[in-house]
């Protein structure tokens, strides 16, 4: 029996439709050179005809920042159509989360957007805390802010490093990773892990910062603004970078909003929407910082906005560190938080709580909650549905990269293929977050 006979006709029809779409290289023709590909030609004999080339771009291509695949239709050097194809690193984290108790979900959730792990954990913990109605102590909130903003800088550094690499500037890569190394060292110091730290817990953070952390953080904060100025000097003094970024990939704020785009991309277009200011969560209202915005919404604005955001994050961390309140770093609600280690030796109740939490986990009242936070890429929202048991009935992450990618074809169509690479770099998609 041939393989085809095993399939029903409907299936094979569907499949062939898919294969048609997938066809890597197709050639079709346009009648008028320079005109849009679908323009109806007058068909005069002797008129020059131009071929359209559909090119398969990725998924394994260093400029796609992961395993993003693009079907790009080109008219000469000009991009006419882009179809992003995603799902290559879909690992079913949302499904996995349904089979784990709430506190065990945090490590898998962190692996979604793998450059913004603290933000994933924050969105999830925030949603669960809303459902459980647990109060997070002030010190834990400040520690969260410190780590969130450090993570924002680290994420922006990685973005800057790889984006500059896409534009052909390799030295930026080493400089940015040099500074990112200092941040992951700080993460290692406070949580024991350099990435995917599982530092945030429902009800607070897992541990207080160790001795010497504040000094190390202070020296980083002293160093960082100067380093950002160096990046600026390197990039703003570079004619090639400016020529490739200015005026390319432009999209106005209204189209971005219609497509649901948030974060630095929206702010680069002049809309100062930032959840940290608009809907302050986690004590962000206590800090004095500004929202950098761009003017026209091209690639250069996106670069400038993110660089300025690093400066603002440094300011926030400084304020949070100096104003770090004394007190507990974890809620005292024993139904949610593990009891301190020393209590286990003396208190029977503490031992029971510990046993219940570790084996079954805590139960969450039935209900649904959506908790949005401002991640380095925009609104990262976690929607959690609880059915009353110790495992979530549904965890859905509204990942900003997933939504922002929708705007990519509008940004890059009509530009040159080289500008498409720059636009993709400035879009900052993280495929781990897109595919989840």
């Amino acid at each position, binding site marked *: 029996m041939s*393989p085809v006979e095993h399939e029903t006709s409907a299936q094979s029809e569907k*499949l062939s439709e898919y294969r048609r779409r997938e066809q890597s290289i197709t050639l079709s023709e346009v009648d008028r050179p320079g005109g849009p590909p679908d323009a109806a030609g007058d068909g005069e004999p002797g008129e020059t005809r131009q071929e359209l080339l559909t090119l398969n771009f990725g998924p394994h291509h260093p400029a796609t920042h992961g395993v993003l695949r693009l079907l790009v239709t080109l008219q000469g050097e000009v991009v006419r159509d882009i179809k992003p194809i995603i799902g290559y690193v879909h690992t079913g984290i949302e499904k996995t989360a349904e089979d784990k108790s709430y506190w065990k979900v945090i490590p898998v959730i962190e692996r979604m957007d793998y450059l913004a792990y603290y933000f994933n954990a924050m969105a999830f913990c925030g949603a669960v805390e809303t459902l459980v109605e647990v109060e997070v102590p002030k010190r834990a909130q400040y520690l969260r802010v410190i780590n969130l903003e450090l993570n924002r800088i680290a994420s922006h550094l990685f973005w800057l490093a790889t984006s500059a690499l896409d534009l052909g500037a390799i030295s930026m890569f080493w400089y940015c990773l040099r500074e990112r190394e200092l941040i992951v060292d700080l993460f290692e110091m406070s949580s024991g892990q350099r990435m995917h730290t599982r530092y945030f817990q429902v009800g607070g953070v897992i541990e207080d910062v160790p001795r010497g952390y504040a000094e190390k953080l202070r020296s980083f904060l002293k160093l960082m603004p100067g380093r950002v100025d160096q990046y600026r000097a390197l990039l703003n003094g570079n004619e090639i970078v400016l020529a490739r970024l200015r005026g390319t990939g432009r999209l106005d704020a209204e189209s971005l*909003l219609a497509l649901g785009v948030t974060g630095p991309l929206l702010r680069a277009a002049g809309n100062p929407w930032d959840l940290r200011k608009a809907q302050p969560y986690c004590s962000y209202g206590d800090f004095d910082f500004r929202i950098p915005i761009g003017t026209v919404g091209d690639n250069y604005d996106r670069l400038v906005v993110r660089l300025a955001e690093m400066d603002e994050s440094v300011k926030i961390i400084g304020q949070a560190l100096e104003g770090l309140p004394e007190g507990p770093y974890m809620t005292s609600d024993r139904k949610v938080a593990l009891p301190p280690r020393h209590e286990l030796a003396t208190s029977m109740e503490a031992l029971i709580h510990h046993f219940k939490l570790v084996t079954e986990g805590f139960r969450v009242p039935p209900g649904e909650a959506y908790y949005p936070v401002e991640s380095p890429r925009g609104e990262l929202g976690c929607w959690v549905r609880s059915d009353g048991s110790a495992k979530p009935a549904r965890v859905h992450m509204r990942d900003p990269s997933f939504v922002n990618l929708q705007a990519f074809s509008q940004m890059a169509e009509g530009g040159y293929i080289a500008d498409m690479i720059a636009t993709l770099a400035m879009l900052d998609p993280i495929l781990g977050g897109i595919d*989840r």
Partner: protein
Amino acid sequence: MPDATGLELIGQELGSAVLDTVFFRERATLVIEPDSVRDVLAHLRGEGYAFMASLHGVDYYPEEPRLGVVYELLDMARVDRISVKLRVHSQAPEVDSAMPDRPGDRGWPTAVHQEREVYDMFGVVFRGHPDLRRILMPEDYEGYPQRRDFPLGGEPVTFTYNDPKRPPATA
């Protein structure tokens, strides 16, 4: 957030399209008739909720109507959020797409990927969606993996001996 009273007012304005209003943990949710989704979203846009922040799929197995779609709307001027929830029967999981369906219609272009994701994971069909295909799972995948009755790890690894597309081995 609209408070509980504000939510009731919005619910009354929409009349019979609203099945229920839920105010839970400072969060307003309108439970609506699935067929009226486009009208409700258009009405809420008129009220200022002009940004669709997110779209979630959910499965209320074993209850029926089982599959849910949740729209998170945001009013950026007043910094106000409202959720719109609808539920469809698993036998006929169909609902109108929020995408613009005719020239001049603003619609919600942000729904294009997100509705595809809900279709992919739960099998909810969005009528009028311009390109309703699977987005994260392979195109020829069968079943809807985020449904609650879809087993975790229930998918056998395909080897040459159990590949349904290969002819059975002959001794």
